[in-house]
C-alpha cells in the first residue's frame, strides 16, 4: 500500500451503514430526528446513511418499520433499514411478502436483533426469511453482541448468496473474526467499533478493503471515533474510499430512492 495521502481530505465519500433515529432508552444519547441526523452527517462529512428506527429495536418492530418509512420520506440521503423477526407469530408477514414490501418501500438492508427479540439467527424459524433476503439481495446487519459467531458462520454457509454485515465487533474478537472471515466470503464487518488496535489495517491486509464498511453506530456511539479511526488509519486512499463508501455501494442498492 502507498500510505495515506495529504489530498484526499473531505473528498472521502462516507456512507454510514449503522445509524439509527429515535430515542435510546439506555443511554444519554438524546432523541435523534431526521434534522439532527443530517446535521451530524454534515459535521462529519457523511454523504449518505442506512438508517434504522430505535423504536423497532426497543418497542414494536413492525410499527417502527412503518414509522421509519414515513420519517425518511423525501430525504434522498437517508435509506431505510427495517428490523426483521421470524414470522411464526404473524408479526411482519410471510418472508417473501415482507421482502417485497421492503423493496417497494425503498428499504436497502434489514437488521436483526436475535438477543433482544428472543430468537435464533440460525434457527429454523428464520430460514424462509434468509432465503427471501438472498433472492432480493437485501443485506442483513447484525451486531456481534446480538448473536454468536457460530450462528453467523452457520447462516453464511447455509445461504451462499447472503450478505451478512456484522457490527459492534469490539477489540477482543480478532481470533474468532479472522477465522470466520477466512471461511465465509459473504461475511462483512461494519467498523463502527472494530476497536482492536491496528486491527483494521491487519484485517484489510488479510481480507481486502472490500470486506469492510463504514458505520458510526450513532447515536449510541460517537461518530467521531470511527471517522478519526478510518481517516487516520495507515491504509492508502483507495482502501479508505472502499471502506468509506465503496463496499456499501456494491452491497446496498443506495443509488436512488423510490419516488
Amino acid at each position, binding site marked *: 500500500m502507498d500510505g*495515506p*495521502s*495529504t*489530498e*484526499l*481530505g*473531505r473528498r*472521502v465519500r462516507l456512507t454510514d451503514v449503522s445509524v439509527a433515529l429515535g430515542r435510546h432508552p439506555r*443511554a*444519554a444519547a438524546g432523541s435523534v430526528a431526521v434534522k439532527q441526523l443530517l446535521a451530524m452527517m454534515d*459535521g*462529519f*462529512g457523511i454523504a449518505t446513511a442506512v438508517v434504522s428506527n430505535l423504536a423497532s429495536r426497543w418497542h414494536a418492530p413492525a410499527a417502527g418499520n412503518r414509522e421509519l418509512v414515513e420519517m425518511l420520506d423525501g430525504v434522498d440521503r437517508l435509506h431505510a433499514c427495517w428490523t426483521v423477526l421470524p414470522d411464526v407469530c404473524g408479526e411482519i408477514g410471510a418472508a417473501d411478502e415482507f421482502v417485497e414490501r421492503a423493496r417497494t418501500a425503498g428499504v436497502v438492508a434489514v437488521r436483526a436483533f436475535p438477543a433482544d427479540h428472543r430468537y435464533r439467527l440460525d434457527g429454523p424459524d428464520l430460514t424462509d426469511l434468509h432465503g427471501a433476503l438472498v433472492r432480493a439481495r437485501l443485506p442483513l446487519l447484525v451486531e456481534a453482541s446480538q448473536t454468536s459467531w457460530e450462528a453467523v458462520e452457520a447462516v453464511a454457509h447455509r445461504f451462499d448468496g447472503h450478505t451478512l454485515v456484522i457490527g459492534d465487533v*469490539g*477489540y*477482543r*474478537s*480478532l*481470533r474468532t473474526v*479472522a477465522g470466520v472471515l477466512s471461511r465465509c466470503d459473504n461475511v462483512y464487518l461494519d467498523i463502527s*467499533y472494530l*476497536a*482492536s*488496535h*491496528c*486491527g*483494521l*489495517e*491487519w484485517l484489510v491486509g488479510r481480507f481486502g478493503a472490500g470486506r469492510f464498511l463504514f458505520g458510526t453506530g450513532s447515536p449510541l*456511539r*460517537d*461518530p*467521531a*471515533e*470511527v*471517522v*478519526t*479511526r478510518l*481517516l*487516520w*488509519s*495507515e491504509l492508502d*486512499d483507495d482502501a*479508505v474510499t472502499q471502506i468509506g463508501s465503496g463496499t456499501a455501494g456494491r452491497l446496498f442498492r443506495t443509488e436512488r430512492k423510490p419516488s
Partner: protein
Amino acid sequence: MSLAADLETAVFDRVPQRAVSIVDAHAHVGPYSEFFIPQCEPADLVRVMDRCGVDRAVLSSHLAIQLDARSGNEATAAAVAAHPDQLAGYLVVNPWQNPAEELARWGDDPRFVGVKLHPDLHAYPLTGSRYAPVWEFAERSGCLVLTHTWTGSPFDDPKHLGMVADRHPEVVLLAGHAGALPEGFDQAIEVAAAHPRVLLEICGSYHSGATITRMVRALGASKVVFGSDFPFIDLRYSLGRLIFADLDTEDRIAVLGGNASRLFAWRGRPPADDRPTG
C-alpha cells in the same frame, strides 16, 4: 483557524495534527493473553503516535499488569529507553508481588513517571493494606498514581477511589476509565468533585465526546485527562472523541495534554516542545 478546526482538518486531510501537544496518559505495550493485538511493540506504538501527532504516551507493559510486575516493569523501562522522547513509564505495583521491593527498585528511575495499579486484574481491593507502600511513596515523592476503575467491581469501583482519597488526600489519583461504565460516570464525577487531587482519565468503550464534555463542565478541564488505553483499544477511537468534542480551546488543550504535562512534571521532564500545553 481555531484549534478545533485545525484538529478536524488534520483528520479530514489524513495528516498528523501539529497544532497542540497531545499526551496519552493511559497506554500499554506488548501482547495480552485474552486477545490478539496485531501491533503492540514499542516501535509500533510510536509509529501510530506519529501518524496522528501524539507527542507522548505514558505506558505500563501488559506483562506487568497481567503476569509479572518485576519483569514487566523491566519491559516498560526498556520501551522507554528505546524511545525516550515519546514514551514514559508507569511502574506497576502488584499487591501480591513485593510492592515495597518494586518501589525501591524503580522509585528513582526517571523512566517511570507514575505508578499504575490494577486492582481488578490482581483481584485485590484498592483500599487494601498491601497497597500501603504505594501511598507512602506517592505522598513522599509527589508521584501520580493511575488506578484502573470499574463501576460495580469489588476491587476498584469509584467508591473505593473515594475511600483511598479520603485516607490519602495528598496523593494525586488518576481514575483510569473514570468508572468505565455509563452508570458509574456520575459517581466518578462526584468522587473527583469531592477530592481536589482526584482526576478522571477518559479511555474505554463507553465514553464519548458528550461524556467528556460533561466531565469537563462538572469538574473543570484541569481535572480531566486524555488517555487511550492503546494498544488495548485503538488509539484513534479514543482520540477522535476528544478532537470532535464540544470544548473551548483552553479546555481542549488542557485535556489533550496540558494536564498530563503538569501531572508528570514531578519527575522534571520538560514538555515535548513549545506548543500549547495549557
